[in-house]
């Protein structure tokens, strides 16, 4: 069992400025994070069998997921890059890496924008836990009407807009043996996503974990170039 990364260095102020601007409750954000950690743990043996050279997490937030991946890969040399549009989140990610003795290079930017050119077909593990906002939540409405950075993140009613932008970049980023892990919600039309990724990008999808959390039904979808991995 791989221990959950130590986040005790993060303060209430950190959480308020990492999750709440994106219109997410900390509680819900944790449910998404834990599902992704559990999925990665289940994939750990397979990931270690073919050790990645370059890993990229988009929207790293607290840095918990990247630190957990680092713990899975402990002793294996790897470059771990983590982006977030929120500078406060980048700083949390850096601190979480240091605290857990995992080398993570954070970059403050939207999605993978400044990396798309140079990381073309180079990412072996790609992670994205989008800032989904529960449909109809007042926070989401606030975030969008404020029109600031949080609005950009909150995306459409189901947080799908950001995910759509991301999905267009997955094929560009993934290496031949690359795997991408995405957190998705039932209302994102999981089948639609899988069909689109196959038709437009020739990428295989597999649902590797699912769980109910309150009213939400969460999924982890894995994209890869071949299905037999």
């Amino acid at each position, binding site marked *: 069992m791989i221990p959950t990364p130590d986040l005790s260095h993060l303060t209430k102020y950190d959480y308020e400025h990492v999750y709440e601007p994106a219109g997410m409750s900390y509680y819900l954000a944790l449910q998404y994070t834990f599902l992704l950690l559990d999925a990665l743990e289940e994939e750990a043996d397979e990931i270690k069998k073919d050790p990645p*050279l*370059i890993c990229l997490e988009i929207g790293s937030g607290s840095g918990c997921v990247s630190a957990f991946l680092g713990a899975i890969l402990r002793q294996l*040399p790897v*470059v771990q*890059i983590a982006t977030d*549009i929120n*500078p406060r989140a*980048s*700083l949390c990610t*850096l601190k979480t890496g240091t605290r857990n003795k995992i*080398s993570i*290079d*954070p*970059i*403050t*930017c*939207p999605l993978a*924008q*400044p*990396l*798309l*050119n*140079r*990381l073309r077909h*180079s990412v072996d593990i790609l992670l994205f836990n989008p800032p989904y906002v529960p449909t109809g939540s007042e926070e989401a409405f606030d975030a969008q009407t404020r029109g600031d950075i949080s609005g950009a993140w909150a995306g459409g009613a189901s947080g799908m807009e950001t995910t759509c932008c991301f999905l267009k970049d997955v094929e560009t980023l993934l290496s031949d043996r690359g795997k991408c892990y995405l957190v998705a919600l039932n209302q994102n039309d999981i089948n639609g996503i899988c069909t689109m990724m196959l038709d437009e990008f020739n990428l295989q999808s597999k649902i590797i974990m699912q769980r109910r959390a309150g009213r939400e039904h969460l999924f982890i979808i894995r994209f890869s170039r071949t299905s037999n991995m």
Partner: protein
Amino acid sequence: MVRLITHNLLACHVKGCTTNNFPLTFQDVQIELQEAEFNPEFVRNLLSRLDWAALVDAAKQVGDTSLPPEEPEMMDDDLLKKLHHVLLEIHVIEGAMTCPNCKHVYPISNGIPNMLLAEHEIG
């Protein structure tokens, strides 16, 4: 931390800035050296992902001139060690990176590059 491996993967992403937008030029840098475990195989594997000329230039900008200007065909252990140091042990803590084409300045603070753009610069 902006290590030179990270720098080698970053390009300017201002709307319309699509040629000569890599590598970004370091300015006014403060660096910190942090020892990392040397793994020759790992460094060798990273080579396939690197732009050698960009790395040599970036190393010079942060005060390291140990790498030859042309990528050698044969990599001995000594050179791999130098490469290891340049790629993974030099951390840029403060400073900025400038696009050679559009001159956009990306600040680096607390070891984190800020690559956010203003609304009108987003592609």
